[in-house]
Structure formats: C-alpha cells, structure tokens
C-alpha cells in the first residue's frame, strides 16, 4: 500500500462565470479553492480549519470525486482520483455536515443500501451495523425511520454509514455538527479508535478548534480558499507564541495571528456581511 494516503497538488476550483451563456459574460467566476497542495501520510489524522466559505467542503467534495477540479490533481494511495475514479472510490467514504438520508426509510434500510453499493454482503452489513451503532449508543433505534431520530442521532447514523464500508481514507466534513457535547465526545473517541485500530487515514474539516487540536496530528488553516499555515498543533502554536509560553497559546490565537480575525468574526461576516 502506498505510504502517502492523499496527495493534493495545486488544486483550484471556481464557481460561476457563466462563460457558455452570452448574457452572463460579465459575471466573474468566484474562486473557492486556490492552488492548494498538501500530503497526508497513511495513518494520519489531518485537519483543515477555516470559517464557513473558506473552501473546506469544496476541497472534500473534490477529493470525494463529487466535484471536478479546474486545475491540479488528487492522488489517493497513488491512484488519480479522476482517471482511476472507480478504484479510488473503493478506498474512501465521507461524512457530510448534513446527514442526508432517505428520511422515511429506517436507519438500517439506509445503511443496508449505502453499504451494499460498496459491495458488502447483507450478513456483514448486519454485523458491522450492530457493532458500530452499539459503540455510538444507537443500536436500539436501528429499525426506526430516520424522521424519528433527532438531528444528532441522524448525524451518528451518517458517521456509521461512512465507517461501515471500512474506508482506508475517511473524509470527515464537520462530522460533529449538531451533536450535543456527550455525542460529540463519543464520535471523537470513535474516530481516534478507528484510526488506531483499523489503519485508516482521516481528513477532518472543522471550525471547532478544540476538536481539531484533540484529534489531529497535523492541521492546515484555510482562508479565502488558500492554505495559510500548516503544521502540527504544537508547531502552529509555537509560530503564534511571540515569546509567550506555548501552553498559553490557543489554536484560536493561531487563527487570529494568521488572518487578523477571530474564526467567529469570519463566520459572522459570511452570514451577515
């Protein structure tokens, strides 16, 4: 198996522009991801932190083969994500911020479908579903329609959907959004355990600084679609210390030092600005 799980090289993506339509010529394309490059070695948890609209989800969608990059390349365990799309897809799965299920179907019916299209047999799906939902404290709700589950419980089923296919590269796009603190800790514990026990590599996007620091081996800060800093949490805090003891420097301070704004301010600008 290739030692580098994920190689992202000079990746760019813009939206809009309407070049094909004469009456939309004037609208300039909006860049979402600009010239992003990074490598994630096998077995690492790599975090990308940024405000809403910083390009985190666009990046994950491109790695998931759901968006075609304008420029650059993505290699998953040496496979080109575009040219060897089908093979690359066997190695990955993704948790999105929205749970996204057939809401009238039960949790089990949903998991059965999404695991079967990865080639898993019914017996294996039943066994793994029981095991994973048991760890996420949701085993007793498995046959209830998704509409009967809370937002947090639905998100746990979404986490189970991704883990069920045992991906070697797991893309977690804000996986704990909408979870209460206890559920959040359960999911975070589960993520660590999967990495330690099952040889998975994980790309985690979040705007929760504590979560990133707790889970990630290395972190990249995204702002305006670009990586503005990359390193281990310790390296990043050391870079922002400016003579202060490292223990007094938080990841929020790092973000402030790199962008001149607090993460919450960036999000407020995006929501209200």
């Amino acid at each position, binding site marked *: 198996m290739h030692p580098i799980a994920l190689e992202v090289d000079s990746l760019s993506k813009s939206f809009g522009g309407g070049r094909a339509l004469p009456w939309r010529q004037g609208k300039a394309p909006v860049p979402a991801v600009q010239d992003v490059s990074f490598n994630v070695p096998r077995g690492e948890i790599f975090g990308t932190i940024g405000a809403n609209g910083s390009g985190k989800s*666009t990046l994950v969608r491109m790695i998931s083969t759901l968006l*075609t990059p304008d420029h650059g390349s993505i290699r998953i365990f040496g496979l080109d994500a575009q040219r060897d799309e089908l093979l690359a897809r*066997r190695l990955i799965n*993704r948790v999105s911020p929205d749970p996204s299920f057939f809401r009238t*179907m039960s949790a089990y019916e949903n998991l059965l*479908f*999404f695991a*079967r299209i990865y080639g898993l047999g019914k017996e294996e799906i039943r066994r793994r579903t029981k095991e994973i939902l048991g760890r996420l404290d949701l085993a007793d709700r498995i046959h209830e329609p998704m509409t009967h589950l809370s937002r947090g419980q639905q998100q746990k089923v979404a986490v189970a959907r991704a883990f069920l296919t045992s991906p070697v590269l797991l893309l977690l796009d804000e996986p704990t959004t909408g979870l209460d603190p206890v559920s959040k800790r359960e999911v975070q514990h589960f993520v660590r355990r999967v990495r330690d026990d099952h*040889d998975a590599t994980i790309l985690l996007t979040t705007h929760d600084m504590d979560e990133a620091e707790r889970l990630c081996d290395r972190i990249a800060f995204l702002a305006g679609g670009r990586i503005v800093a990359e390193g281990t949490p310790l390296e990043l805090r050391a870079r922002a210390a400016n003579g202060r003891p490292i223990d007094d420097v938080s990841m929020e301070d790092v973000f402030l030092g790199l962008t001149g704004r607090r993460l919450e301010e960036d999000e407020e600008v995006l929501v209200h600005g």
Partner: protein
Amino acid sequence: MANMSERVFASGSAWALSMAFVERQTNLWKRYWAWELVWLVYGVVNTLAITFIAEELGRRGETSADAANRLVLFLLIGTLVWAYLSAVLDDIGLVVGWERWEGTIEHTLMAPVRRSLHLLGMCVFAVVHGAARTLLIFAIALLFFDVDFSNVDWLGAGAVLVVGSVSVAALAVLSGVLPLLYPERGTQMTMMVQASLLLVSGVYYEVEVLPGWLQAFAFLSPATYILDGIRAAMIDGDGVASLGGTLGALALFGVALAPVSLAVFSWAEGYAKRTGKLKRQG
C-alpha cells in the same frame, strides 16, 4: 472491521450491486404505499374514462358492435401502455429528483459502482413496478368491459412488451437527466417528455391522423411501435413471427437508445460535477 487488503479488493458482483438499487426502491415503495394507491386509482379512472368513449360510440349506433369492441380494445391497450410508459418514466425521474431533495445523491454517486449497474438496477425496478401496476389496472378495468380475447396472441403481446421495455427504460433514463441538470424544476420538466410521447405515439388514435410533420416524430418514438405491436397481437391476433418487423424495430431502438441514455446521463453527471450542481437542494 476488515483489514486493508480486503477493503481494497472488495467489490460486489455486478448483479448484487444492481439489486441494491432494486432493494432500495422496494423499501422506498413500501414506505410510500399510499402514493401507490393514489396512482392506482388514477390509472384505473383514466383507463375507464377513456375506454368508455368507445362504449358510448357503440351505444349511439355510430359504429357497429364489432367495430365498437375493436375500439374498446384499441383504447384499453392505449391507456394501459400509457400507464406503463408513464410509470417507468416517473419512477426514474422521481428517484433522481428525490435523491437531490434528500441530499443522498452525493453519497450514491460517490460509491464505487459503475453508472451502468446503478441505472440498470433503477430500470429493473421501474419496469417490474410499472408492469405490476399496469396489470392490476388491466384486471380492474376488465370488470367494466365485456372484451373478447379469443383472438389475442398473448405471446406476441408479451414479446413486444419485453423487447420494447428496453427502449422505454432508456427513455426514462434520458428524461431522468433533467432533474440531474435542473435541481429545482427538472422533475416537472420530465412531464414535457411524457406529454410529447403521448401526442406523437398514437396512444388514443392512429398516428395517421397527425399532421405529416408530427408523423415524423411518431416514426422516431419507440412507444409507437410498442402500441402497434401490442394492438396487432391483441386485436388482430398476430403472433411473434408476424410481428418480426415491429420486434426488430424495437430491438434496434433498444440497442441504440440504451448506450445513448447511459452516455447522456454520464455527461450530465460530469456537467453537474464541473458546476457544483450535485450539492444538496432544499
């Protein structure tokens, strides 16, 4: 959990992957059984309302009893084939629109399953579902009409339906591209495809009554040949041998349309991926 080598090389058989879509559609259908009831009632009422026109002509004496019986069968076949066609087209269009609405389409399209197997599974369900619903409408409609089936060649009619279903499924995939390209109005736009087929294919009348330029479209619609073939088998008693020309035309449509529909769907998927249109709507 499986070790890495198992994960890398694990892949289901082609048939099992396709059947996953059939199973999903079946589970969805079970949850929405009330919708099925609505469509069944609509199909029965539509079939009866149109076929009673033939009864009315016979009652008025505007046509002979024999001609009225032929007309009953003509309209009955038209409404039933139309019920089947629209059920298959609806199934594919609705599920694409549904997946967009629920946001599951991203998870479905990023799975390591070939698009051909994905669409095959959806088409198998749509064809079986459409055929079952149409048979039920047929059985209920027979309670209202005294139709003479002594001359019917069931094998011929069945052969036309089976061979014609390939091109019907391909048309359904082609119209299913609309909700993929137009997230908000694509499902409604598939009605245009259905309405156009209804107009040009001779569902309720012979295509000869259409203006010449519309007859050219009738020539290009597989539904025209399905209706012709089933009417020939059920009204005139034509067997498989006599239906060779119609079956050949339908087979050609199937052979041509199946790869075209797959290519168009794949192109639309590529377009949606370039423009970011797969993102959840609603």
